[in-house]
């Protein structure tokens, strides 16, 4: 366990006992909540659990404080919190198998989530899936930069260069996505961005991106994003 890198730069492991709650928070912060070797998403990529995690980013997932008391998740398609979590792990994080209630990771995450103070009444968080991806009018470019910086850049990196992106699997925007759809008309190529934002990995698309509901990102903000990405 004591890892000796080289004489003069020695690393010493120090084992520290931690609680199950701390274990749960570590899981929340760690992409290894999925055993997939290519996954770079953690729970915190899409959800805020505590105020200290709120860095001003626009996250597609609902806040986690109070999550266990909500009656349903995923627009009413799940009423079991563990199944809702497993949906994230499988569709976004590349896990092949769901956690069961007996898995230590699931227990630790439950310990952490159950200790978060509820931020409101136990009601389902609205999550309207926009099924019809249609062209939108150009929005405000300045607003679009804000949308890009808060909603897109943490995974896709900087506009055009992709610098700082979370994973190379996240395309550089917009060029890489445009290049993958040269067979489409300019309008349809723009609709691809609408489709990807609204559908994510679902509804006939692929990949690992989560969808942004209308409550999280309005059509006006999406229009602004399209303008900022120079898609008109």
């Amino acid at each position, binding site marked *: 366990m004591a890892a000796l890198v080289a004489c003069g730069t020695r690393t010493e492991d120090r084992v520290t006992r931690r609680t199950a709650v701390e274990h749960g928070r570590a899981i929340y912060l760690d992409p290894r909540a999925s055993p997939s070797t290519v996954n770079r998403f953690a729970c915190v990529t899409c959800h805020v659990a505590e105020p200290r995690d709120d860095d001003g980013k626009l996250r597609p997932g609902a806040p986690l404080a109070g999550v266990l008391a909500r009656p349903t998740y995923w627009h009413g398609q799940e009423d079991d919190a563990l199944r809702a979590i497993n949906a994230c792990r499988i569709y976004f994080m590349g896990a092949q198998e769901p956690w069961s209630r007996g898995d230590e990771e699931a227990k630790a995450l439950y310990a952490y989530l159950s200790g978060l103070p509820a931020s409101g009444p136990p009601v389902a968080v609205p999550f309207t899936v926009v099924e019809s991806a249609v062209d939108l009018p150009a929005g405000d470019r300045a607003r679009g930069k804000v949308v890009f910086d808060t909603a897109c850049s943490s995974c896709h990196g900087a506009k055009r260069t992709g610098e700082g992106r979370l994973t190379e699997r996240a395309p550089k925007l917009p060029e890489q996505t445009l290049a993958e759809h040269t067979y489409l008309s300019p309008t349809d190529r723009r609709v691809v961005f609408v489709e990807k934002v609204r559908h994510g990995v679902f509804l*006939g698309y692929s990949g690992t991106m989560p969808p942004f509901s209308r409550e999280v990102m309005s059509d006006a903000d999406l229009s602004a994003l399209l303008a900022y990405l120079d898609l008109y």
Partner: protein
Amino acid sequence: MTGRATGRTSLGSMTRWLLSLCMLPALVAACPGTETREVPLYDPYVGPEVFPTRRAKLPAVVGDLGLVSNTGSDTITAIDVAQGKVLATVPVGKNPVDIDGTHHVAVDRGRGFAYAAFSYPPSTTATGPHASHGSSTRLGLVQKLRLEDLAVVGEVRVDPNPGDIVLSDDGKRLVVTHFDLARATSADAGTGDRRATIALIDPEKILAVGSPEPVKIAVCPAPHGVALSRPTGDVAYVSCYGADAIAVVDLTKPSATPTLVKLGGAAQAAPLPAIYGPYSAILSPSGAELVVASTESKDVRFLDVATRTFTNRVFDTKGAPFFPAWAPDESVLYVPTQLPDGVRVIDPKTGQSRSERAFTASECQRPHEAVLGTDPSTVWIVCEGDRKAPSVVLGLDRDTLATRVTFPVGVYPDRLILGRPR
């Protein structure tokens, strides 16, 4: 995002760590400078059951328990038939956004489980440049549901496009057909085989994780309806829509070639459309005959089970017949039809119409199935509706066909299964 260890500390790793501690003084003496890395050792969770099920248990049902699969809303509706009450409509399926396509359901009330098949639709309701990509080739799914609250307790993958799911009377064989029209119309590149399979599943082996692969039997092009011999389901009678035939499958010998019994002499010029289009196969209460409803030729005909030949009785049903129901004494058949939408009561020996009722769109759009339960005076009709809005299950007086009760259910219901009282 941080990359801390998540605490998978085992006894072996602890031992190695302690051994390394013993060696540490000598190593430290040899090297100047130390960086310390924290390795967390997490305490196990101690406390109440994690993620407790909050779904309410279904109320106790004395008579028939009805379960309705709602294809368009990924839900199952539970009904207390005798009390005339909808007990609950609960979400099922795996995908939280796409339509999983809840397609038919089977029930084993004695053991306390239901089994729902999911047929991911060939195109979604969504629009967009990618919205219709490849869905028809997505694998199907069977979920095992705990009957007390319809919570998912297990699942197993099956082939694309599950068509029907039935359970043997003894509860030991679960059979799923695969209504794979895409395969039926475009010959498989490698073998030219247009046949799809039926999946043979041991219900006890449907697990939460790691269910064994079902036994698959290649049967015929686009198999849809299936009936099992009683009580153990040794033989499956499968309506082969794409072959205009009934396949007789010996489930005790999965490697044996099924026997195909053609519906008639007319020969198909191309794989599809079918000339007859046998869609459903329902065994009579005595087990002596199989009624086969064909949606293309719009008729019902009868297979003699003993001789495995069709009788000469073929009765026009005007509209396309879907899933008929036998009266317990086999004196009549209740036949739901589409275009025109209605239900006909016919004598299975003579074809004489005893009564019939046409439905308006507001009463029952696209009647899909007729079902009889323990209530001797009611026939239940599952109405698909417009496949976009919630629809209904109607309870009709068996004699007059007047509506006695209406159950609101989900979008595009396609199966009512009745769990008989234990």
